[in-house]
């Protein structure tokens, strides 16, 4: 399962596609006089282009389309050792956190203080540093100051907490200070009113035409058709470049799956990826399903359901939605295409395990009132098996549900 893909391209303004609507919305806000809402939160799944948009705003838009603005870009989480969207070398007013690195509040403030050439008293306290920045911003009323916090939700929440408690809550009270936050997965529960009331939007997936344009701007010719790339990558721009280099459909799926899991630390990538593969046949799952499915896929598994869910949760590639854990859409889409091709037998086995699990739940007397719910799920998996030519579901072995939990 070694990564077969080469490093994705770093940000290049010539390769940037569209996002006109989002950029216009941000510019409109920045051009208003003393807008009431001065925070924007952009969320989207992995690969949708949040970091490229942040870089585009910082390096291109704020330099070319608007005057009287100072901005900083802090990318608070690293997408792994295989990808550096910011490119080589450092640029002023930018800080990209590397793999395994932690950014401290002090360093964060130092970058801002240095860029504004603020003079501080000797041995300044944290409060004095923040106060100096506030006074600077407050005394430049005709100037705009924009802080971009990229990949905030994926980052270390203790830094976000310090930032909001000591810095954002203070600076956002000023009419000329703005913050743009991007993130995926679990939204951070803000306590700063200006962030609670932030303008929110999600980044949409690319259309087939946009992917075509992306290929053109990247100068790539592809063995796969644009429609194939769209179908596998589901319009997530991160995949386009890699998929265009694949020799065939099977390799493309392999590459797409590798890209998804490249964000995980290498020491646990393989094992956590197996959890995702085991659970991708389900629309959603709880701890009981996590144990049953992983056990079916990997009989030597020693983890209980809770620990499996916890490890998957740490990846930010699943989230709690609709009363259950759900995989992020691109992850589930790609694995559901990948697994039946790469390991048809395992796919059938997993569908059967799911069927048997829900059959057992339906027969449990303490769960009687949920029987129709379980029967519907049984039906779903029986249908998939039937479509794969399995007419009768295999014999379901007995197991104790208590095993699923610690």
């Amino acid at each position, binding site marked *: 399962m070694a990564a077969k893909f080469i490093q994705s391209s770093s940000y290049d303004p010539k390769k940037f596609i569209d996002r006109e609507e989002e950029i216009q919305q941000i510019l409109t806000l920045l051009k208003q006089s003393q807008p009431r809402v001065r925070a924007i939160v952009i969320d989207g799944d992995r690969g949708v282009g949040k970091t490229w948009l942040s870089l585009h705003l910082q390096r291109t838009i704020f330099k070319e389309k608007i005057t009287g603005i100072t901005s900083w870009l802090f990318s608070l989480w690293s997408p792994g050792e295989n990808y550096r969207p910011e490119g080589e070398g450092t640029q002023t007013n930018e800080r990209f956190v590397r793999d395994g690195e932690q950014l401290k509040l002090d360093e964060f403030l130092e970058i801002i203080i240095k860029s504004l050439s603020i003079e501080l008293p000797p041995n300044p306290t*944290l409060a004095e540093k*923040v106060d100096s920045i506030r006074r600077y911003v407050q005394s430049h009323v005709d100037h705009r100051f924009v802080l971009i916090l990229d990949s905030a939700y994926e980052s270390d929440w203790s830094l976000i907490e310090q930032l909001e*408690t000591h810095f954002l809550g*203070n600076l956002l009270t000023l009419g000329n200070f703005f913050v743009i936050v991007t993130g995926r997965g679990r939204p951070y529960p803000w306590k*700063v009113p200006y962030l609670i009331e932030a303008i929110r939007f999600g980044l949409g997936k690319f259309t087939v035409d946009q992917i075509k344009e992306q290929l053109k701007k990247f100068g790539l010719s592809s063995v796969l058709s644009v429609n194939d790339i769209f179908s596998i990558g589901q319009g997530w721009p991160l995949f386009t470049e890699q998929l265009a280099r694949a020799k065939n459909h099977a390799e493309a799926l392999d590459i797409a799956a590798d890209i998804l899991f490249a964000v995980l630390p290498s020491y646990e990538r393989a094992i956590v990826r197996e959890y995702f593969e085991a659970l991708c046949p389900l629309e959603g799952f709880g*701890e009981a399903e996590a144990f049953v499915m992983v056990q079916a896929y990997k009989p030597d598994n020693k983890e209980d359901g809770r620990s499996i869910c916890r490890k998957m949760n740490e990846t930010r590639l699943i989230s709690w939605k609709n009363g259950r854990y759900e995989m992020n859409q691109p992850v589930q889409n790609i694995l559901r295409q990948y697994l039946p091709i790469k390991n048809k037998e395992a796919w059938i086995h997993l569908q059967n395990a799911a069927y048997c699990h829900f059959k057992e739940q339906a027969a449990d007397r303490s*769960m009687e009132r949920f029987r129709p719910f379980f029967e519907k799920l049984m039906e779903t998996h029986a249908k998939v098996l039937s479509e794969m030519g399995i007419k009768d579901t295999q014999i379901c072995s007995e197991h104790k549900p208590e095993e699923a939990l*610690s």
Partner: protein
Amino acid sequence: MDKLWLDHFNFRFDPFEHGEASRDPNLNRYLIGHEAFSVAWSETPAMIYSPPGGGKTALRIYTARACWTGGGGYQPFPIHYHLPHYFKNGDFSTVEDHLEQIVHSGAHALFLAFAYYPLIFIRSAPSLQKQLAQFIFTWIPKIDFYLDVLREGKPDEVAGQLDGSYKLYQTPDPTLLALLLEILAKYHREDPLPVSLSIQKIFERMVHWITGDLGFRAVYLLLDGVDGFPELASSPGFAAQSLAQLFAKAPKWTASHIFVKGFLPQEIRAHLREQLEDRWTAFDQIDLKWDAAILADMLRRRTYVATEGEFASLSAVSALPSNQDLELELARVVNPLPREALTLVRQVLFEYETRWGRNPTAAKQIRIEDMEKALAWYRNDQAHITKELASIAQG
């Protein structure tokens, strides 16, 4: 009980623990119902209604803490006016009665603002420092005692003794706090200035310090606790009469950036309207409304925050099938008030822990029987209490 469930379910803290909002350090991460907050937060006089246990106090504390998120800046300055804290009984009605206690609370608010964020005081001009210090010494009896407590470096301890509503669960920088205490001690040694101003003038001067000299955007006067006096709770007409003169000032005060926010029982509304006549329209009005869906949201939000986003429902650690909604099941049973929903969740967790304690090899998972036992307890032991409370509130 040891709250083993915290560890079993990987909660960082207990989000269901505090019946009283001021004691909950994490309150400001639980906000749901942004509409009511927008009314409390906007620069207009406002009246926010709910029955007892309906979240008035939580929203008041929430609003005050929101003012302090970030430690100052160009924020509104909150002054709590929790009536039972400042009056022994409901015998007050003149503007002067109210202003006297508002100034009293304003002194608490300023002293604690400086204690949590000493830079606000240290950065001000010496002449202003002197006036502020003398104001605090005059209006906070036993100030020596509170200064001694503050020397230990914990403003929360001081707030807990002066007025718990002001607790911010923050620690100031020790060097700045030491400097603050040194400056205050210097002024404390000086003779106090004679005060011969009317209470109205003292109030105006206090507001001017806050919005003019210290650079706050506005003063938010957060009035609460009307239903804390039996004589007011049982007679909403009398309660409205006791507050009418104060509320009548609110429209005019907006010019001085003073915004009165009343957190009030619903029964008082019609009476206040009658008393305030044409001034009534100056107030934004909103009801804190609760139904099963919103209560379930509130419970889920608390779980989400306490697990740092790992999951947003106790269903994740229950034997309920995925896609089933534990919070909604509980919320449908209780009287539709946050306090009630929190009580029931605490009981579910108690039942889980009791059952698990009898058999520590059992799965660490809330079972349907835990919920059923908690529901039976609520129906038998709790429902009549809440009905009594409701009937007291309704007179």
